[in-house]
């Protein structure tokens, strides 16, 4: 089949990202030709400021080198500016006469700096700040000239000013507005910023209107004259007063434009063969100038160019970050505050900290942080996920309080960490290595960082820190999507919520059926998506979907916990932590018979036999003659109890029996992540109910239920859920909550994270408000559990399952050979 012809005009980040996405989806659909006006391959434009500041070199910020174009058979026309599009002939022509025909055209011409229409704007030494040529020109000028004036106190202007100052020039920033960064900051934060930049030696004139640029007599600028008559010397004038979508070419060829090329939600222009993307495009009236939205557009545009036709771009909430080393500044959403909004402000001008949060209808809609931006990513997530924050309003200002509190010396501010400090305690990755990888490989998401450096790829406790480092390094371009919006893995573009929904609505009951229906891009998924799919199937369609052991992690296949040397640990169930002499005797006998190297009491009130060979597992289970403790699964683990009213002089309720009953009821329950319960007999809480997924505390008048507690990576106290009177109520409410969690949570989402995502209100509505609904949830859990049996017994009873545990002897075979 003859390939279609795709021509791209413009060779920048948004356009090339679209090609990358397209090549992933449909590598052979098009012959691709790219026209670039610059003599360079695609580079990371947002890192021009670090280049100017001398922190990086141009070579380091190249994203796609010439080899990339060659490897993908892309015809690259550098140094050629397209001057016309003939839409009838479907032909583009460049300034040197080169032509190219197209079936699909992608316009990605970006933007131009806005040059003030004042006398002297064409003098030598007057430039915009847009590309590597401008940057190089500034670097050259700094060597030979002294006075620089930057017009515009926005992000770009300040970064340019900072860089020129570091290169040794005297820099004055002229700004029309009343304060700096008026699109990113409010007045207070803007003044704090100005103060700290003045401390670094930058000068500011604002509000000030530029009237004219003066000639030194040789065609070069020598001074700036203002409307009020003031004049200051200037050997270099950088115009950073904003950008304008570069839509001239499209306009000349008759494509509808209005401050940008008009595009619909598929990034298509009024000519259906022509797409536009990036800073030149105007989507629902907005031309985005930040990288993160452009990458979202790229994904959607590629989806349509690849003729898949289902993705849709609906606009983006954006965040910004000033890339001036040592200055901490973050803003997102509608931080200015408008009618109908409420603001919470923390202001410490002496300490150099200012934070403002804007709330509308109990939802965080904007944040503006100066001096301490550690929680920027967290606020941004709250804004994007539309969380109801009414319940956390009183401590919202204090952020996520601990980004991760184990494994990195309690450090929770990435900015202040030295480069050689370890961020990821599991894989030994330092901050410097992460920053380097982000810059050199052009990374924009935490997932990219994980893949490239392994940081945050094991326990994940440092993911918040990694996210901060990412935001600090690439600013507003950081793609910090919440899990609810992220694709499940590289095998699909769909997120967990979409997949759960499809499985339920389409009645999908097997992994192959789900992968086919959902257009999986790999033949049998990967180690990330298969376990998730398997859980979604069996939890949504109990009794119908068949469990797939090959899609489970080894622990859930071997029904034991793999150890570093490949041996296993075996934890038999002790209901409610209660045992007896004959169980203990059998455990002791097993320890002797199988030479168990370590016998240890666990935190969940039972006994762990460590160092057992896989071949011995069935024998151990048989000799123990106790049920599986599921100490290895994304499943019910234990119900921890205290001795309660039976023995304890303080006990108010029989917590031990309550725990035993709950553990029996939940036996064999698979769940999105591990589930731990505890029952204490009085508020002294000896069973530690406060840090369990469901924690129950007996009081004289009944039982209090707490949910969403967690004692792991990040200690989380459970939240009070409900108080009930009887043991039957405890059972019904606990099981109903757990079923809701099983049905709605994403795979590997603990109850605390599920709760943070959907909100306590939602859970209360689902479980507490309607008795019928609660009973139905309870019933559904019991129905689901009716198909499960003790996995150890099952393995012993079915010889074909036992095969997994036998090794094939080779020694005698070899003698034959």
């Amino acid at each position, binding site marked *: 089949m003859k390939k279609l012809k795709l021509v791209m005009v413009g060779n920048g980040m948004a356009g090339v990202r679209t090609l990358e996405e397209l090549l992933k989806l449909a590598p052979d659909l098009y012959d691709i030709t790219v026209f670039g006006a610059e003599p360079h391959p695609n580079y990371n434009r947002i890192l021009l400021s670090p280049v100017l500041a001398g922190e990086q070199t141009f070579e380091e910020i190249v994203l796609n080198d010439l080899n990339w174009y060659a490897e993908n058979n892309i015809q690259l026309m550098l140094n050629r500016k397209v001057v016309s599009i003939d839409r009838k002939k479907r032909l583009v022509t460049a300034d040197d006469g080169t032509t190219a025909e197209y079936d699909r055209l992608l316009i990605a011409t970006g933007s131009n700096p806005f040059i003030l229409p004042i006398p002297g704007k064409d003098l030598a030494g007057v430039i915009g700040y847009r590309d590597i040529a401008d940057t190089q020109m500034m670097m050259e000028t700094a060597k030979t000239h002294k006075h620089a004036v930057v017009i515009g106190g926005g992000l770009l202007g300040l970064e340019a000013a900072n860089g020129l100052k570091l290169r040794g020039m005297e820099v004055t920033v002229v700004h029309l507005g009343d304060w700096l960064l008026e699109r990113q900051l409010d007045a207070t934060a803007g003044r704090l910023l100005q103060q700290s930049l003045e401390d670094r030696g930058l000068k500011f004139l604002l509000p000030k209107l530029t009237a004219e640029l003066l000639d030194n007599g040789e065609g070069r600028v020598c001074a700036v004259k203002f409307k009020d008559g003031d004049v200051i010397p200037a050997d270099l004038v950088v115009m950073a007063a904003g950008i304008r979508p570069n839509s001239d070419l499209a306009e000349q060829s008759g494509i509808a434009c209005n401050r940008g090329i008009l595009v619909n939600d598929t990034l298509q222009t009024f000519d259906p063969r022509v797409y536009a993307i990036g800073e030149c495009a105007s989507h629902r009236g907005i031309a985005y100038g930040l990288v993160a939205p452009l990458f979202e557009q790229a994904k959607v545009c590629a989806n349509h160019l690849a003729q898949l036709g289902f993705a849709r771009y609906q606009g983006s909430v954006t965040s910004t970050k000033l890339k001036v080393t040592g200055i901490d500044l973050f803003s997102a959403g509608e931080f200015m505050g408008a009618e109908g909004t409420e603001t919470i402000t923390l202001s410490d001008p002496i300490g150099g900290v200012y934070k403002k949060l804007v709330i509308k209808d109990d939802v965080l809609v904007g944040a503006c942080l100066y001096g301490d931006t550690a929680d920027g990513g967290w606020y941004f997530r709250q804004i994007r996920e539309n969380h109801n924050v009414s319940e956390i309003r009183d401590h919202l200002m204090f952020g996520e309080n601990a980004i991760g509190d184990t494994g990195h010396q309690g450090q929770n501010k990435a900015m202040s960490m030295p480069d050689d400090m370890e961020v990821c305690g599991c894989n030994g990755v330092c901050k410097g290595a992460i920053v380097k990888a982000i810059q050199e490989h052009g990374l924009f998401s935490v997932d990219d960082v994980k*893949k*490239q*450096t*392994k940081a945050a*790829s*094991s326990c994940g406790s440092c993911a918040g820190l990694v996210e901060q480092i990412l935001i600090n390094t690439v600013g507003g371009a950081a793609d910090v999507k919440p899990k609810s919006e992220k694709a499940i893995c590289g095998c699909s573009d769909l997120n967990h919520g979409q997949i759960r929904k499809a499985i339920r609505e389409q009645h999908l009951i097997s992994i192959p059926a789900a992968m086919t229906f959902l257009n999986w891009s*790999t*033949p*049998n*998924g*990967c*180690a990330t998506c*298969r*376990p998730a799919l398997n859980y979604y199937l069996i939890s949504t369609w109990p009794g119908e979907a068949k469990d797939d*052991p*090959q*899609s*489970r*992690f*080894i*622990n859930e*296949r*071997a029904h034991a916990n*793999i150890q*570093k*040397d*490949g041996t296993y640990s075996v934890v038999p169930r002790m209901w409610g932590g209660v045992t007896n002499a004959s169980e203990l005797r059998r455990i002791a006998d097993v320890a002797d018979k199988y030479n168990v190297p370590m016998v240890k009491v666990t935190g969940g009130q039972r006994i762990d036999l460590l160092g057992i060979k*896989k071949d011995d597992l069935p024998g151990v289970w048989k000799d123990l003659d106790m049920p599986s403790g599921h100490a290895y699964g994304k499943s019910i683990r234990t119900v921890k109890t205290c001795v309660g009213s039976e023995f304890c002089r303080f006990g108010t309720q029989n917590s031990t029996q309550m725990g035993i009953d709950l553990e029996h009821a939940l036996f064999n329950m698979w769940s999105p992540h591990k589930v731990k319960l505890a029952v204490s007999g009085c508020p002294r809480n000896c069973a530690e109910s406060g840090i369990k997924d469901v924690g129950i505390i007996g009081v004289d008048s009944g039982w209090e239920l707490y949910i969403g507690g967690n004692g792991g990576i990040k200690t989380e106290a459970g939240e009070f859920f409900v108080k009930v009177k009887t043991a039957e109520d405890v059972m019904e409410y606990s099981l109903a909550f757990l079923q809701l969690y099983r049905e709605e949570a994403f795979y590997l989402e603990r109850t605390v994270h599920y709760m943070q995502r959907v909100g306590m209100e939602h859970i209360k509505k689902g479980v507490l408000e309607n008795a019928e609904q609660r009973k139905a949830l309870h019933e559904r859990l019991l129905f689901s559990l009716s198909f499960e049996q003790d996995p150890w017994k099952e393995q012993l009873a079915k010889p074909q399952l036992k*095969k*997994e545990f036998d*090794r*094939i*002897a*080779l*020694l005698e*075979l*070899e003698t034959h*050979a």
Partner: protein
Amino acid sequence: MNWLDICDLNEINPLGARIIAGPKGDIAIFRTADDQVFALDDRCPHKGGPLSQGLIYGKRVACPLHSWQIELDSGEAVAPDQGCAHRHEAKVENGRVLIALQNVATPAACA
């Protein structure tokens, strides 16, 4: 090549693996979804994890200890990880799984 008869193909689950007790330690024998078989020493180049216990997809296995991904046909770790598991020749003939042991010194074992 010295081919050794191991077992019936259907004694290994699709997307599953078995362990062969080899003369110099365990060997993992993998079966892919399309019934190809591959044999690697049952030791991850990272920290010696038993690859036979990993999750298999496409032509890769994810080590059960720290999720290193290993290419079944070459034994090579997928970037950014670096390392190589020792490889043996394996094939299916008339429904039987055969392997030919490769000495560590054989250069073909690791690229």
